[in-house]
């Protein structure tokens, strides 16, 4: 359905059909996606997939009754049924006393940096070339390579009965690899961006291979409070989990968030924004309500400034949407999808050199909030954890479990790296530096 699908035109048709079926307000979110992913393990390609899909999410309101229907059957008959289904749901639903209505049009500035024709036209042969470059680096180091190389193009359109006509095309490419050695070593590296040509597969392979070699025969250390340097791959998790538990206006309205404008929640070195115009954060021009994306300062020099808003939460608090709505129905509320942490002044050697005795952590694994309001999170280290003494890396250690407040981590930040990486987090593009943090609480250990 995607190949011939014109998202904006389909959305306009669906809005008209739903209005004809009796809807007072209508919103159509149409997505045409082409996603490709080549996966490798034990230094060979073992999974290699492609998906072509087009789908529509139709939200209608009759008075204050709202219904949502979605489908990937977008021919004339499919659209008619979709409109009738959404209207029937709205008719049978209950009234929302504080229904804010659908948003009005806002000026939208297209972001050419969000799209790369090279990524959109990427072939399975090109992805296999990249994978072979990673495997070659693994072979040279005597380790095995595991990972994935993906490219995707999304054409998104949002139309509504108030006149919103928003359309954009975005591409994302990502190459990640874990390398493992027979002697217990394990390393990780990743590259991501809008343009697949920005990904240097051989360099990513070398980075992971070197780390897999450097982590051979790790030793056990005792858990406890340690100063740490978190590489960019770990900092991604810090931002993602803070967004998940706190940087949404709905979380604030439901009193489940730590966020409070003016409250000091981090050291002066910490500034975090959500900026969908930042080329390094996989940009977006508008949200899933068709509202233009605004740059939102979440934390400025350690002080909480704001959270992100969608139409409904903004109306409740007398605000304007900041363009962070997710597809309906959405009981979680608005969400930051383009998080950016400001760089500091420290080079990598300075970050590690300032540790004294501490740990260098490559990345985290399977993190999960234990106490959301305090942002206490547990998780494991993975794929490269090193002991640092006198400011120098002295050797690998076995992986550790932490149970740590991510807010306390912001407060304990003592240095921020000057270099940043574009990475693909669980919830969107992220641009982050490495950081040094005092008092990271490790609470357990494992056998590798």
């Amino acid at each position: 359905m995607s190949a011939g699908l014109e998202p904006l035109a389909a959305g306009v048709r669906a809005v008209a059909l739903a209005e004809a079926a009796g809807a007072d307000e209508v919103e159509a979110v149409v997505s045409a996606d082409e996603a490709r992913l080549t996966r490798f393990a034990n230094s060979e390609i073992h999974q290699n997939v492609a998906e072509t899909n087009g789908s529509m999410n139709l939200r209608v309101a009759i008075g204050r009754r709202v219904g949502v229907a979605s489908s990937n059957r977008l021919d004339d008959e499919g659209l008619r049924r979709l409109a009738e289904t959404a209207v029937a749901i709205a008719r049978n639903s209950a009234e929302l006393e504080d229904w804010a209505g659908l948003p009005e049009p806002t000026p939208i500035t297209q972001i050419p940096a969000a799209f790369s024709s090279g990524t959109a036209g990427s072939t399975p042969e090109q992805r296999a070339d990249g994978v072979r470059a990673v495997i070659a680096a693994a072979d040279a180091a005597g380790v095995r390579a595991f990972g994935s190389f993906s490219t995707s193009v999304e054409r998104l359109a949002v139309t509504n009965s108030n006149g919103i006509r928003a359309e954009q095309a975005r591409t994302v490419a990502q190459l990640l690899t874990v390398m493992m050695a027979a002697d217990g070593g394990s390393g990780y590296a990743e590259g991501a961006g809008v343009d697949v040509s920005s990904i240097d597969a051989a360099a990513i392979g070398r980075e992971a291979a070197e780390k897999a070699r450097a982590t051979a025969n790790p030793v056990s250390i005792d858990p406890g409070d340690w100063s740490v340097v978190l590489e960019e791959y770990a900092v991604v998790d810090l931002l993602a989990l803070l967004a998940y538990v706190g940087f949404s206006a709905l979380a604030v309205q439901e009193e489940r968030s730590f966020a409070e404008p003016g409250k000091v929640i981090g050291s002066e070195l910490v500034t975090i924004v959500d900026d969908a115009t930042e080329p390094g954060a996989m940009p977006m021009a508008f949200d899933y309500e068709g509202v233009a994306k605004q740059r939102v300062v979440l934390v400025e020099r350690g002080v909480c400034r704001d959270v992100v808003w969608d139409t409904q939460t903004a109306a409740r608090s007398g605000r304007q949407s900041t363009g962070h709505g997710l597809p309906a129905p959405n009981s979680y509320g608005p969400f930051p999808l383009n998080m950016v942490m400001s760089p500091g002044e420290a080079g990598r050697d300075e970050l590690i050199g300032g540790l004294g005795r501490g740990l260098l952590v490559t990345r985290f694994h399977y993190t999960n909030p234990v106490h959301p309001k305090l942002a206490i999170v547990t998780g494991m280290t993975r794929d490269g954890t090193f002991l640092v003494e006198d400011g120098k890396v002295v050797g690998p250690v076995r992986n550790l479990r932490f149970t740590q407040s991510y807010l306390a981590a912001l407060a304990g930040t003592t240095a921020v790296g000057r270099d940043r990486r574009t990475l693909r987090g669980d919830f969107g593009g992220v641009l982050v530096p490495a950081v040094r943090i005092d008092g990271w609480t490790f609470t357990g250990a494992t056998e590798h």
Partner: protein
Amino acid sequence: MRDLSDRSLDTAVQLGASYADVRVVRRLEESIAIKSGRVEGVASGESEGQGIRVLVDGAWGFASSSDLSAPEADRVAAEAVRIARASATALRNRVRLDDRPPARGTYETVIQEDPFAVPLEQKIGDLLAADDIARNVKGVAFTETRYDAQRETRTFAATDGSWTEQTFTHVGAGIEANAIDGDEHQRRSYPDADGGPFKAAGYEFVRGLDLAGRAGPLAEEAVALLSAPQCPSGRFTIVLDPSQLYMQVHESCGHPTELDRVFGTEASYAGTSFLTTDKLDEGFRYGSDLIDIVADATAPGGMGTFGWDDEGVAAQAVPLVRDGIFVGYLTSRETAPRIGRSSGGAMRADGWNRIPLIRMTNVNLLPKPGMSLDDIVTSTDDGLYLASNRSWSIDDRRLNFQFATEVAYEIKGGKKGRLFKNPTYTGITYEFWRSCDAVGDESSYVMLGTPNCGKGEPGQGAHVGHACSGARFRDVQVGVGKW
């Protein structure tokens, strides 16, 4: 659908595939979300498409499309073949599949009351009734009540002549009450948070939950937790309610027995497994003698119950742990021959646009005659009773785990007493299961599970079942971190 599938397979073979299978899937979903009496989301979803998997030169390729036209079937089959040829340029071991008889037949979930035929107003009314009771309890900050239903019709055809048609109906519902005081946020849920576990059943399952009957006590307990003492730290005897034990089984039994993880094919995302094949050969002691774990795709009502998996292998019950000894894996046609076995039928795909992966079916901890769950509590002098999962984490080889539950009840002299808030416990998988000295009998054996088990790249969610009855563990580290 037969014509479309035949066309896809013919095209793939003509272009060089030595094997191909195609699935045509149509999924209907309905959801209702209520927050503090506000009907926040009522939605219906429909998705359909075809996905074809091919072997060319010993390498896999897969392509999928939401377009079910014949020309698109040709295009998708050709794309899959092209992708497989690209895979073959970085291949070290040709794929070999075990033999199985061609799969033929139909399967359908047994239901009493079609959830899609129950009027929407009635379903909303049932949920609102429960939500109202919970949110009107003094001290409750907000409530969430959810309902979800899913029906999936799936045809499978393969070049060996296999042809199956299956229809699955799964429903789920649940309620949670949240109480907040300053930095303290306490939650109680039933039967589970985030909409509760689904079941392969009709709307009769939702009626049987009696959400309205459970809502009041549930909400009162959430409020009481705000003033409850912090769960103590130390080494404790713990009794796990089925509402937590199923998650323990999921993370520390289900995932490490996935044979693809053992062979490294999930290493770049979810990780590998400590249950390496040498442990199968040596008869590794996974748990105490009381531990019997079976992956049973035939269990009534389980979210992992089917007629055939997505490779056309018939549903079966596969022992994973017997009398505490590790004896088997979740397997596929590609992985099973590598340990000298036939596929146990655990390949499952999340819809038309994903390849099948080794997934849990219903990984069940079997009940033990002799002690009811109440008897286990009565026979515990000093310990904690933990219920309702709140947080989960486990390392990339499935050894070091840490869980948080919504509530702990002190056990003193064989009786459950006061509440503790923010309980956590941690351990190493095999040490933990070896410390089990009591497993409940049939009287508390219940089918639970999760509808959102994540795995694979691109990501896939799976509906997996876990039946269990509750169990006791000795000398467990409780109370982790700074509070």
